[in-house]
């Protein structure tokens, strides 16, 4: 650049950079507006302002708008300054995308779920991606042919269900065979009399950190101990969706013990993000999850509607797959690079989900949901246990808050005692006593438990259940 032949060329070059920058920003705005458009096409309700702000894409639109205004103003700068600035702009662009390219191509193990599903299908196995409990929270479920809405809480039944976990070098996909309602259990459990244990939690209880998600999870461990245990855990759950799942499935099974998992970090999708939860964002149609919260005897009778759920979920997943196929692999790679996906996720600037914080469960909503859970379980004469699951530093920010987490849990324990909910603290009873607690975590990555952890927690829990005379 230093040896540019003439000042005229330099001016032309700087104008070109500024104009390219403006064009880039305009494309950015158009891209995120399109993201909104595609998302809202799935919704049945009218779009509210609150929903727009909930999605975070507006931040990128504002960012690009400000940048484009600055670049337009930059065109009027002094020539010498404009030339220097244009070089710095180009350098920033090249540096940013150079690093993004490097990150993209250095992730050799980034075999995501859709690739894994495809490879299973190619081998003649009819597999489907697992759907988190929060998959339909924003859209208030799926629409049936009759025009009614249904909010699935399980998954596609009796199919290989592909999940993924974060490995040391990126995501690793794996599959479990789903049960009759799409949960991670062996088949035939719902037909048995006298279910001993129901497990209600999130991805950590469903499959996380497993080499073989069918075998190495808490439900499987408890069954190996000889209990009739059903795992109703789903990734992306919140306490309200857990209540809903227990209402839909556990109420029919009437287990002796219900294990409700509590994590110090906010793994559980915050209830406050359910559309319409806040009175400031009214919706024409009440959200199905909110009906569980507000109406005492509300139920969708999901346990009797699995065929319908299957057809709706398969239709939904196939349409998603078709959408993904339309965007070919190169297109997807370009989309990821263009949106600086790897760079943003490395610096935690991926705003699709907020970073995990130490849970703040003592809100009035949490207390009410816990009360509802206690009442629900008491109705079938079962015993509800609040299980505090690994409180080992799971996220970088979490380790700093470990004491805060302990203090918070004290208040949760107090509330549980008040509601006569029994508490099992795995940190106190397992991690604190273990000589090498880190060895209980997959790849020694903080917080992703391994088979050994599940085995030991299963032992700790079953010992307590026996002591209490529940089993």
């Amino acid at each position, binding site marked *: *650049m*230093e040896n540019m032949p003439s000042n005229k060329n330099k001016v032309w070059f700087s104008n070109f950079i500024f104009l390219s920058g403006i064009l880039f920003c305009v494309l950015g705005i158009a891209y995120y507006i399109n993201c909104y458009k595609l998302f809202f096409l799935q919704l049945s309700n009218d779009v509210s302002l609150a929903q727009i702000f909930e999605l975070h894409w507006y931040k990128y639109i504002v960012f690009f708008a400000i940048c484009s205004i600055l670049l337009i103003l930059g065109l009027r700068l002094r020539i010498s300054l404009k*030339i220097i600035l244009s*070089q710095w702009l180009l*350098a*920033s662009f*090249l*540096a940013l995308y150079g*690093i993004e390219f490097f990150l993209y191509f250095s992730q050799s193990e980034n075999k995501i779920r859709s690739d894994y599903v495809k490879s299973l299908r190619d081998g003649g196995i009819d597999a489907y991606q697992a759907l988190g409990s929060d998959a339909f929270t924003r859209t208030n479920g799926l629409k049936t042919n009759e025009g009614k809405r249904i909010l699935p809480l399980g998954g596609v039944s009796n199919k290989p269900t592909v999940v993924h976990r974060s490995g040391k070098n990126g995501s690793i996909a794996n599959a479990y065979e789903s049960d009759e309602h799409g949960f991670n259990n062996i088949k035939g459990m719902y037909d048995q009399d006298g279910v001993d244990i129901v497990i209600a939690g999130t991805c950590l209880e469903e499959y996380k950190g497993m080499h073989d998600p069918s075998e190495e999870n808490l439900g499987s461990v408890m069954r190996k101990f000889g209990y009739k245990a059903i795992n109703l855990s789903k990734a992306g759950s919140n306490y309200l969706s857990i209540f809903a799942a227990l209402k839909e499935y556990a109420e029919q099974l009437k287990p002796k013990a219900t294990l409700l998992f509590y994590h110090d970090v906010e793994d559980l999708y915050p209830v406050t993000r359910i559309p319409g939860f806040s009175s400031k964002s009214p919706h024409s149609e009440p959200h199905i999850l909110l009906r569980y919260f507000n109406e005492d005897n509300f139920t969708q009778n999901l346990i009797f509607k699995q065929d319908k759920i299957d057809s709706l979920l398969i239709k939904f997943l196939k349409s998603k797959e078709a959408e993904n196929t339309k965007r070919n692999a190169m297109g997807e790679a370009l989309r990821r690079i263009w949106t600086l996906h790897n760079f943003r996720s490395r610096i935690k600037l991926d705003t699709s989900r907020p970073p995990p914080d130490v849970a703040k469960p003592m809100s009035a909503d949490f207390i009410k949901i816990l009360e509802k859970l206690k009442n629900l379980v008491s109705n079938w004469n079962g015993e509800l246990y609040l299980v505090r699951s690994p409180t080992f530093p799971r996220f970088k920010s979490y380790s700093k808050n470990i004491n805060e987490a302990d203090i918070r849990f004290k208040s949760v324990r107090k509330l549980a005692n008040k509601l006569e909910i029994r508490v099992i603290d795995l940190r106190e009873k397992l991690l604190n006593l273990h000589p090498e607690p880190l060895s209980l975590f997959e790849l020694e990555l903080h917080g992703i438990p391994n088979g050994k952890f599940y085995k030991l927690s299963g032992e700790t829990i079953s010992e307590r259940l026996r002591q209490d005379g529940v089993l």
Partner: protein
Amino acid sequence: MGIYLSRKTSKVALFAGVAGNLALLGYFKYANFFVDNINALTGGGIVLERIILPLAISFFTFQQITYLVDTNRKVTTEHNFLHYLLFITFFPQLIAGPIVHHSEMFSQYTQDTFYKLKAKNLGVGLIIFVIGLFKKVVIADGLAMHANPVFAAAESGIPFTSLEAWGGALAYTFQLYFDFSGYSDMAIGLAQMFSIRLPLNFNSPYKSTSIIDFWRRWHMTLSRFFRDYLYIPLGGNQQGATRNSLNLMITMFLGGLWHGASWTFVLWGALHGIYLISNHGFHAIRRLLGHDLSRGTILGEKVSQLITFAAVVIAWVIFRAESVNGARRMIQEMFGLNGFTFPAMIDFQLLSLLTLSLFVVWCLPNTQEFMHKYKPAIETYKVDSKPPSHYLFRFEPSNFAHALFITVTALLSILALQTNKTSDFLYYNF
């Protein structure tokens, strides 16, 4: 106290002021050390609650002492209280230096430019800050992952090989340099954004050709303080060779102790005292033999550089070790006193990091040389300051390669901040 001393010279008042500052430093930093040693010697059981060290006390105590001493000497002419507070608490350099001198700072506070943000200073400051950040979060923290396990093994008696010992020692040598000089760069960069120039704290110390040279390049503001407020008042080199040696030993012993209440720091200071005495003795012998010390061959210079570097590395082992026993084990293994041993596999990541670090400290200009055009730091010692000869090593805002270098450096630092385990600055402990 300063205002009183500015009106009236008083050795008693000065003594009270200096003693008050040193008493606070002594209490917070050395009381536990003192009690532990008394207990060890007498077998007593004096119990003292663990005292929490106030952040930056070692640094601001020295700045206050310089102010009091110079006020009593009538060297300080300005006594504006707000300026004094700013001098002590100016945030970029408060926590880990550079240790600033009132004469450098007060004159800048009175300039109008200090109260205005200037685009040029903001830009230059930001670039220096980014370079410092990169040194800290990418290089120093990357090296820490390799240095810490070896020193931990030495401490706990876990066996390790000679090559691993050298790897750990070199990794720490570079970690400390990039950590502390990175911090100093960030301080200088931040101050520059406010149009304030701080004194230079590092001038490529591992390029030193002697230990005397090393102390003119490493933590320059600390060595300046010890020279002006301890070594020279003790008599400096004006009272014969023996007295000079004693003064050097006292200065370096206290310099070691300043770093922390531990025998390893005392030993490190004493070792550097011995290095300096030997260095002065060697110069004296050469002078007696009629050698011209200002002239030397390139080969001689490189050999001297290598010997100095090796001596510094050995001293850093003592400095880093948590106990004298840990240091002993490291040095024994490094010199094969239990036989030379080699690991089953070479750690290529460490090897590449060490090679990169060596290349940076020996072959590249330092930050101040790179930014020579803007003279962002005050020269702590009079140095022959020439801009680097190659244009790639002289920062020019219109140079595209420089723009690319700085933006890549900034982005890698941001990535490292989020993905690596970032440790505290090593000098926060002192």
